[in-house]
């Protein structure tokens, strides 16, 4: 398909002889929110980490813009416009928010002269960060930490965000508040988002497609509306 930003073909990942992802194939299209659902241990986070190069694959291919990647790794993926918001906040508790942003921009090669403008840009998307940017991340609330994690991923101006369970530890209202600017940004910039989320009710509100995973394999692809009506598949999340 020509509008695929990321293509995954027959991806295999395992730890210590145990197969975690088996023969995974999927596409993340341009300007879509793709939601990945499944039980705990289905392999959702591993898939996301393999896509970003945090976990080494054992087989299969990953392509970005049709270009096959020999060995995905975080720096390369960031350079290609992919950003990861990892599970469990993804912040350094002992660093201030400003330091986390500085580190992220340095790590992804954002030129020095563009850095103030980038920070201003993410703060215009998530303005509440302005009130706590000088504080240590470990002293922030769960919602604030998640905001920092998302803002950090946005600093590299990604074309695709991989978001791993952003609602963990957040009150539903807080999660809704967090999803709104993400959805607006996605529509404004034509971002692609791969969203792994347990709170499917909220996640489906912003999703265009849904993939259902079970035991390391994708077992179904559907629309959020169709899945919400499918009682057989609903048991998987």
């Amino acid at each position, binding site marked *: 398909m020509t509008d695929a930003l990321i293509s995954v073909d027959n991806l295999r990942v395992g730890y210590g002889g145990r197969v975690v992802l088996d023969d995974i194939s999927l596409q993340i299209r341009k300007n879509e929110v793709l939601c990945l659902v499944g039980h705990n241990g289905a392999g959702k986070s591993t898939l996301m980490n393999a896509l970003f190069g945090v976990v080494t694959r054992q087989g299969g291919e990953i392509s970005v813009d049709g270009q096959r990647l020999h060995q995905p790794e975080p720096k390369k993926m960031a350079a290609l416009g992919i950003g990861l918001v990892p599970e469990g906040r*993804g912040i350094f508790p002992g660093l201030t928010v400003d330091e986390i942003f500085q*580190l992220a921009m340095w790590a992804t090669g954002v030129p020095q002269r563009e850095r103030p403008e980038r920070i201003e840009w993410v703060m215009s998307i998530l303005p509440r960060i302005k009130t706590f940017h000088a504080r240590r991340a470990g002293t922030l609330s769960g919602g604030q930490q998640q905001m920092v994690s998302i803002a950090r991923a946005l600093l590299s101006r990604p074309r695709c965000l991989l978001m791993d369970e952003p609602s963990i530890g957040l009150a539903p209202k807080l999660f809704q508040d967090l999803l709104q600017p993400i959805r607006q940004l996605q529509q404004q910039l034509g971002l692609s988002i791969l969203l792994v989320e347990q709170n499917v009710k909220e996640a489906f509100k912003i999703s265009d497609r849904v993939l259902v995973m079970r035991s390391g394999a994708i077992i179904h692809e559907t629309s959020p509306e169709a899945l919400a009506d499918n009682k057989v598949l609903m048991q998987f999340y």
Partner: protein
Amino acid sequence: MLLLQLIINGIQVGALYGLTAVGFSLIFGATKIFHFAHGASFAISAYVFYYLYAVLLVWWPFAILAACILVVLFGVVLDRYVYGPIQSADGSFFTIFVGSFGVAVVIQNLIGTVFGRGFISVPSALSRSVETLPGLYVAPTAGIAVVTAVVCFVALQLFLGRTNIGIALRALSESPALVRTFGLNPKAVSTCAFALGSLLVVPAAVLTSMTSGLNAAIGGRVMLISVAATIVGGVGSLRGAACAGLLLGIAENLALWRFDPQWSEAVTFLILFAFIVLRPSGFFGRVVTS
């Protein structure tokens, strides 16, 4: 006056202990590697300085520069070619410690073979004490030691707080996996920790060679002080390691007021033991939320 003399001596020794301990603490905090060969780094830089400055009569800045280069190389090579392979083979904390211990023993024996096992020191006018008050003798090296320790520590704090590599080092101490997710190579950041931590021993080694002198086994004593200061100061706290180094230096010297010199080392153990039992988190140990 004796008490004041012992306190001044203690501050001088403690400043150097603090510098060495901060280097060890930086490496251990960032990489979680128990770099036992940190003492060997101290010995290498001290003997390189001694050989170039006192034997070959090289101008002292060049001798110090050579010691800096060699000791950084030593730390980086150890990280890359000793600890790295052990970690790649899923070696445990203890395996790495044994590897490091082995390297320290080899270095100690090499130094003993080349320079002999006897006591040596670098003669310098700076280490000659002058009577500043009646009965109080202070050498210029005491002031140099304190100023050097303060300058190095402030410079290190600025480096860790204001440079990208410094922030990356602090990030590494919290989560190497997340450092990788950010797009950095944790191994490269770890190498920076070894380079910087090793570099910090040079001023202490040079000044020690000019004041209390050296022998081939000095690395072991340096390690004892570094580990004790790291624990007493609070693991992961550079400020704690510096303060604890100072405390140990002063305590060791104050012990001479009432006890024989052979008991001064026991004071280090006593303080370490007291902290382990009464305050395991050390001076500045903190609980970090995850």
